[in-house]
Structure formats: C-alpha cells, structure tokens
C-alpha cells in the first residue's frame, strides 16, 4: 500500500474515532435538556456542546482528508508531493485536537485577556479552538493543499476532477484564516465568521465532497470519468450559484443592512434545485447498474448521501429559509434539526462510504457485505431521522409558543421550555440519540471486523509479496 493510502487509513480511522466522541458529546448535551442539573459544577452544557460541534467539524474534515489521500495516488499515479510533512502533521493534528479537548474539559475558560484567546479558547462557535491550535490547523490545511496542488505539478498531468479540487484548496485554506483575528464589534465579527462557517460548509466543503463522491461513483459503479466530470461541473455551478449568496440567510438578524433579507431569501430558496438533480442522478446510477456492486455498504451510504442531502438541506432548509419564517425559527431547535439532517446527509454519509471503499482495498476483499453494516445503516439513519423529527417538533413548539405567541420575552422562553410538545421532542430526541449511538457502535465494530476472516483466508492462500 502506498504511503498516501496508509495515511488515508489513519485519517479515516481518526475520523471514525472522533465521530464517536461527537456522538458521546451529543448524548451528553441531550441529557442536559432532560436533567439541567446533570454534572452540575463539573461539566457545563456549553462545554459538552462545544465538544459536540467541534468534533463534528474535525471528524468530517479528517474524513475528507482521508478520502483525498486515498484517491490521490490513483489519480496521479504517484505519491503526493510533501507526503512526509503530511504524515508528521497527522500526528500533530490528532495531538492538537486531544490537547484542545482536554483544555475544554478541564480548563474551560480563562480571564478576559488576550492570552486566553491564545491558550484556552476563542469563544467563537465552531472555531473555539485557541489560536495556537487554529494556527496548527491552518498549517495542516496548507500542507493538505500542497499535497493536492503540488502532486499535480509533480505529475505534469491533471484530470478535470483534480483541477476542481486543486482550485478549491485555495479558498479552503484562506477562509479558515477568519478563525484567527479578534474583532470587538459583534456584528462585524459575525459577518466575517459566517464567511468561514457558511462558505466552508456550503461552498468549499460542497466542492470537496462533490469531488470525493465523483471518485467514489467511478470506483463503485465503474462510471466513466467523462460522465462524472460533466455532471460535477454542472452540480458545482449550481451549488456555488445558489450557495455563495445563500450566505445571506445567516445575515438576517445580525445587524447587516436590510437588502440581505432579499438576497439571502432568494438564493436560499434556489438551493433545493440542484439537490433535486442529485436525486434523479442517484436513481439513474442505481437503476442503470441494477444496484449491483461489490461493495454494498459503500453504495448504500452513497445513496443515503444523495437523499439525506436533499431532505436535510432541501426540505428542512426550505421550511425556515424565507426571512418571514426565519424570524421565528432561527436559534430554536428547528434550526438544530435542519443542521443535524443537512450535515449528516451532505457530508457524513459520504465519508462513511469512503471508509468502506478504503477497507475493501486495504483488506483485499472481493466483496463487502453481511448483516453488520445493514444494522449500522438502519440504526444510524433511523436514529438520525428520529432525532431530527423530534427536534423539529421541539423547534416548532418553540417558534409557535415562545416566539409567535409569547413575543420572545423571558417568560415566553421559560413557557416554551416547559411546553409539553417541546418536552416530548426533547425526550424523544434523547431516545433516538441512544439508537444513533447504538448504530455508531455497530458501525465501529463492523468496520473493524468486516472481511477479517475473508482477508485472513486470502492471506493464507496468497503468500505475502
């Protein structure tokens, strides 16, 4: 196995590990809603939530990096440029994440002085990591970008797919730099912070996962590069065309000028359109190949990606994206519901698909199948759909009772939190969270165990090269 693929396996393993940490932190966060006294004085809800959302970013990012390192040598026919630096930075990355997690757990915050930003945390959602860690992540991203772009230069050839990915590396690195400056004005800070959060997630990450899924489809179904690249260009044009100015839906209520209401609402309303094309494409690919593949889990996770993206991003997003409705829904469990579904559909399913592809090649399996992945697939997707459904009920109750009827007063907030519909949603979210956690454990076990006996048999039959 090439050094790049060995590194990919490490990144994918770390991604699955942090996926587990994210799940555990999510369960902890859900517990506080049922029992607000939980771990009182030891671990605040805010810390559990930080761990939940930050590890979500980290595991997906590591998953993307693993996927890219996996496909890179096949695309260029050589080891990536700067692979030695990438190998070192993997351990730096993992160590930094662990140290930051330990700081969040045991130190949590510092005095309101500059050194707190450098040493403990920056207090900005999703990018709470202290500056030393943010600089480290920027260095990892920079080397990652060089691994892709430098390899294209080294190989003296480039495919359309890799050209898209190479260009995408520039905003991927540059946008992350917004995690570093301290801006005192909160409206200005949020204005730029959304460039990082939204444009990473709904622009650069979308392109990255589109490239990864294109490579996945080529590998899984044998679809030709020409077809995949043609579709990739269309999809990226549509996603960027709607997604970049769709940024405006985050500018509705942070103190930006009124014109963002129109811009954000208009472009966000167009965002489901390309997702509909993806649904048709998924049906076409699945049908033309008659669902035949040597790697069923990877194939089904790819399908889950197309449908999950449509439902989570398209349906759940469109319910709250117009400013008249967003006025009541933003900051409630309703947006949490959309966020969970969209991240799961758009990114998580794709990363899990690549995990199974890498596993098949690494263990030299002719086929990947069996009941384990089906259990994991059903429990994870069932748990996720149950959670987002529960959060939708809770969020609608908040928007209805607390915002629309109660007028967003403190009393109305308390009444909203005590409303039976809200409580029902919060309790059932916890129940489905447990189901999701069971799905994670099944997935982890399946990834460890699948094909072990089969590959051991192959190894016995074929002596080591």
């Amino acid at each position, binding site marked *: 196995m090439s050094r790049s693929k060995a590194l990919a396996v490490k990144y994918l393993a770390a991604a699955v590990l942090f996926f587990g940490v994210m799940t555990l932190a999510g369960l902890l966060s859900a517990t506080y809603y049922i029992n607000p006294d939980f771990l009182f004085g030891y671990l605040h809800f805010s810390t559990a939530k930080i761990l939940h959302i930050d590890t979500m970013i980290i595991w997906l990012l590591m998953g993307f990096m693993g996927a890219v390192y996996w496909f890179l040598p096949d695309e260029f026919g050589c080891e990536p440029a700067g692979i030695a630096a990438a190998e070192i930075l993997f351990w730096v990355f993992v160590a930094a994440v662990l140290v930051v997690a330990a700081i969040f757990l045991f130190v949590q915050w510092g005095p309101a002085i500059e050194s707190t930003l450098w040493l403990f945390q920056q207090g900005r959602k999703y990018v709470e990591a202290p500056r030393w860690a943010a600089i480290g992540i920027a260095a990892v991203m920079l080397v990652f970008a060089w691994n892709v772009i430098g390899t294209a230069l080294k190989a003296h050839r480039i495919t359309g797919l890799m050209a898209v990915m190479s260009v995408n590396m520039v905003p991927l690195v540059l946008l992350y730099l917004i995690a570093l400056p301290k801006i005192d004005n909160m409206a200005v800070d949020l204005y730029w912070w959304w460039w990082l959060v939204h444009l990473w997630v709904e622009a650069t990450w979308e392109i990255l996962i589109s490239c990864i899924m294109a490579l996945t489809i080529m590998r899984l179904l044998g679809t*030709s590069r*020409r*077809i995949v690249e*043609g*579709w990739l260009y*269309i999809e990226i044009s549509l996603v960027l065309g709607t997604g970049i100015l769709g940024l405006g839906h985050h500018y509705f209520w942070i103190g930006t000028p009124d014109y963002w209401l*129109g811009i954000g*609402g*208009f472009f966000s*309303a*167009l965002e*489901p*359109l390309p997702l*509909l*094309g993806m*649904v*048709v*494409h998924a*049906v*076409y690919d699945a*049908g*033309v190949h008659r669902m035949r593949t040597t790697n069923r889990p990877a194939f089904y996770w790819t399908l889950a990606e197309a449908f999950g993206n*449509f*439902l989570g991003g*398209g*349906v*759940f997003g*469109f*319910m*709250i994206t*117009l400013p*008249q*409705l967003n006025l*009541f*829904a933003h900051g409630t469990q309703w947006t949490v519901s959309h966020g969970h579904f969209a991240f799961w559909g758009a990114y998580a399913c794709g990363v899990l698909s690549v995990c199974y592809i890498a596993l098949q090649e690494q263990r030299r399996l002719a086929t990947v199948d069996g009941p384990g992945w089906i259990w994991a697939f059903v429990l994870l997707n069932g748990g996720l759909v149950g959670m987002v459904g529960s959060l939708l009920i809770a969020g*609608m109750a908040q*928007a*209805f009772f607390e915002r*629309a*009827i109660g007028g967003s007063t403190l009393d109305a907030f308390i009444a909203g939190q005590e409303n039976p519909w809200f409580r029902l949603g919060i309790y059932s979210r916890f129940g489905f969270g447990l189901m999701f956690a069971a799905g994670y454990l099944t997935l982890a076990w399946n990834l460890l165990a699948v094909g072990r006996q089969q590959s051991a048999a192959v190894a016995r039959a074929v002596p080591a090269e």
Partner: protein
Amino acid sequence: MSPPALLLTSLSLGLMVLAAGAYALLYGIGRLKNSRALLIAAACAYGLLALDAAVLVQAAPLGQAWKLLIAASALAYLRIPPLTWWYLQRTHRDEGAHT
C-alpha cells in the same frame, strides 16, 4: 404573521420540496422501469406540488416577490427531472458510442 400562519406556511414550503423529491424519485424509477403507473404517480406528486404552491401563492402571508419566487420554483421543479434524465441519457449514450 399569526402563529397558525407561521406553522402552516412553513409546513407548506416543506411539503412543496418534499413533493418535488417524490416527483423526481417516481419519475426516475418510472423512466428506468418504463412504468406508466409510476410516471402517473410522478405526475400526481407534481400535481400535489403545484396545488401546494397555488395555496401558498393564494393564502400565505408573504409579499408578492416571494410568491412570484415560489411560483417560479414550482415551474423549475417541473423541468429539472426530465432535463437531468435527458442529460444523463445523452452522456451515457455518447460514452457508449465512444467505447
């Protein structure tokens, strides 16, 4: 916007995209299997979408520009599945001719 209108408008918007998804799914499977029944079901799903959009345009407490956007989106949803299908078939056919 009144509290009931908030929920009804939001749910109607969600239903519109959901119906679009059902239309796309049924259209795709119907074309794959050459099934008239599935294509009729796809048309029904689009009918639901169009009806939902009409109700939104008629009754939702939204401004004229937003209603125009909803109506235009409903028309765009009608064309996306056939256009995507046509494009996919064409690229696969061309690919077959090249190989």
